[in-house]
């Protein structure tokens, strides 16, 4: 479903000079698979999410194909319509824009672009309430402005709510677990597991193994200095939890040793 070949991305540093943040990255995600990307701060994890979703400010080269389409040539909204969803690490507030209105408009925009009929407002609302109950979310958040005045945990849950209602083919989750307490973590894991139906793939970016104990990935990749230095199964998370990243990134040298 997603094929990344030799992906390199640069960003302008404070002086305007290009700085490489992704460096010849390769990754293949098949339909229904759950992949996790782990790595120390500054490894390029969030850049990977941003480049895949089409955020401005990166110069990206290499090949990225999503369901046969050239992802890097597409506008952000075209990627969304093709079925790519990004759960943001820091969801932005949209003051005055009702959460329900926003979600419904987004779904309608996607449906319309796919030639589907408009989502019935009643059905949509009922479904939203069900997912909110599953996520232990206050139903009042539907009537509030998008992420405006939401707590950190409410914002993270709101991202998963959007994921559940928009039903993407590939969901990229950029640190969905940061700042969450155990109960909130369990709640979002429950929804992610329910939606893990063999048709939908996840790319989970995280620092911590705890989410991966609840949503057990098929593959874990260690990202370091913009490329994948190690790939393995669920056991990688356990190893990182025990010994840190050093054994994977070769401490000072910064090269793969295993």
């Amino acid at each position, binding site marked *: 479903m997603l094929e990344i070949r030799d992906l390199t991305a640069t960003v*302008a540093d404070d002086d305007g000079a290009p700085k490489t943040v992704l460096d010849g990255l390769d990754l293949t995600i098949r339909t229904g698979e759950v992949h996790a990307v782990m790595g120390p701060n500054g490894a390029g994890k969030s850049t990977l999410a941003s480049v895949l979703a089409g955020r401005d400010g*990166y110069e990206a080269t290499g090949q990225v194909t999503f369901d046969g389409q050239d992802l890097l040539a597409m*506008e952000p*909204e075209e990627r*969304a319509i093709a079925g790519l969803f990004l759960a*943001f690490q820091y969801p*932005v507030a949209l003051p005055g*824009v009702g959460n329900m209105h926003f979600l419904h408009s987004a779904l309608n925009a996607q449906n319309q672009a796919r030639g589907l009929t408009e989502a019935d407002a009643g059905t949509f609302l009922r479904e939203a309430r069900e997912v909110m109950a599953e996520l232990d979310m206050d139903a009042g958040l539907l009537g509030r*402005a998008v992420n405006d005045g939401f707590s950190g945990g409410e914002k993270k849950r709101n991202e998963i709510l959007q994921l559940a209602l*928009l039903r993407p083919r590939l969901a990229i989750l950029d640190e969905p677990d940061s700042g969450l307490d155990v109960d909130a973590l369990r709640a979002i894991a429950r929804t992610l597991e329910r939606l893990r139906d063999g048709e939908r793939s996840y790319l989970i970016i995280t620092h911590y193994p705890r989410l991966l104990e609840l949503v057990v990935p098929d593959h874990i990749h260690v990202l370091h200095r913009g490329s994948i230095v190690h790939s393995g199964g669920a056991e990688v998370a356990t190893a990182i939890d025990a010994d840190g990243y050093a054994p994977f990134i070769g401490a000072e040298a910064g090269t793969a040793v295993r």
Partner: protein
Amino acid sequence: MTDTTTETDTTAQLDDLVGGEYRYGFVTDIDSEIVPVGLDESVVRLIASKNGEPDWLVEWRLGALRHFLTLEAPTWPYLRIDPIDYQAISYWAAPKAKGPAPESLDDIDPKLREMFDKLGISVAEQERLSGVAVDAIVDSVSVATTFRERLAESGVIFCPFSEAVREHPDLVRKYLGSVVGPRDNFYAALNSAVFSDGSFCFVPAGVRCPMELSTYFRINSAGTGQFERTLIIAEEGASVSYLEGCSAPRRDENQLHAAVVELIALDDSSIKYSTVQNWYPGDENGKGGIYNFVTKRGRAGNRARISWTQVETGSAITWKYPSVILQGDDAVGEFSSVALTTNHQQADTGTKMVHIGRNTTSSIVSKGISAGHAQNTYRGQVKVMRSAVGARNHTRCDSLLLGPDCGAHTFPYIEVGTDGAQVEHEASTSRIGEDQLFYCRQRGLDEEDATAMIVNGFCRDVFDDLPMEFAVEANALLRVSLEGAVG
């Protein structure tokens, strides 16, 4: 995280977005009668004679004219305007009457009716469907007023100003100029000398006006200005909600609109005045467009409430400060405004709240949105007199910038003459966030939809104050003004 190339791209896209075309720029081919250009006593007398006005009013006009001729246009607004030649304008134009005055709506010139249909204000449909009484004013005269009989049953008078002068001279004489005097300011003096028509509304004591009242202003003729006068009186305990809309053809010349609106809210009454101003704003290079110089002011008695809500998207120049004189104790004044300027539009708009009575309260919410090369200024005065013990004001003033070449400016003036007053001012200026746009686009909304959604969200507080039908219209208007193409 943004390199120069992408920033330029975004700017170009924003330019496309805000270059929305004006939908109401057509001209209707109706026979018009236009007086020759120029401004002197004979022109004022001619206008007065067209309306068959009594001597006192003619003298009132002439007094205003003499004063006007001694004045210079104010230079304090943050507006760049080429000097206006007031002798090069025709001060009166009217669609030529075909035969006798229309007895009913069915008798209106079909071309006029077609024009209003095209504007989305079907005079006949309005009467049948929406339950909003409409006064339609083309150039200098009122062409249709709907629902008059039903309003009359409640004792409400709603008619063209010219008719009020004939039919209700005592009311007109008592209140005309009582809030905005004929020498109030440059543009008000001009209006007082040459005003042609407008709407008159009187709601007697204790009466809640049974429907929304509305005036639609249309400039159609070339080479003319529009100078209308609106007078609304709510007697003790009365209440009324009034809507105003405007548009004009697309022309290369600048046309002048200098109106005066006076609101008189006697004890325990309330007047809600809502405007959607969509005069032709000029083209994308700043050529043409209406110069809109408007004096709007209300006087509130004891426990009376005056609310101004405005959505300003049109005009090349907007100079307008709907104000409230809070004369009575416990009077309330409110001002909610959305001003959107794109291309080369300039707006210097805001309000004035003058607290005289004890425990008077005022609130001001201003949302300015600027795009293209536009300049958008909020200018507001809160004046608390010595007598206004216990007065309170809260002002919130937000500016949103779209693109790098526009400007937002805030000039708040606060004068407090008593110890026992509480005045608060909050202000913010922000750019539309790349992060916000990206967030929306990641969810599948295109850039136009995303921008419209964010801007609408920014204006939410004000739109919530508008009557239902107007809120929908305002939303749509904002969208069109932001769009790259006519939808």
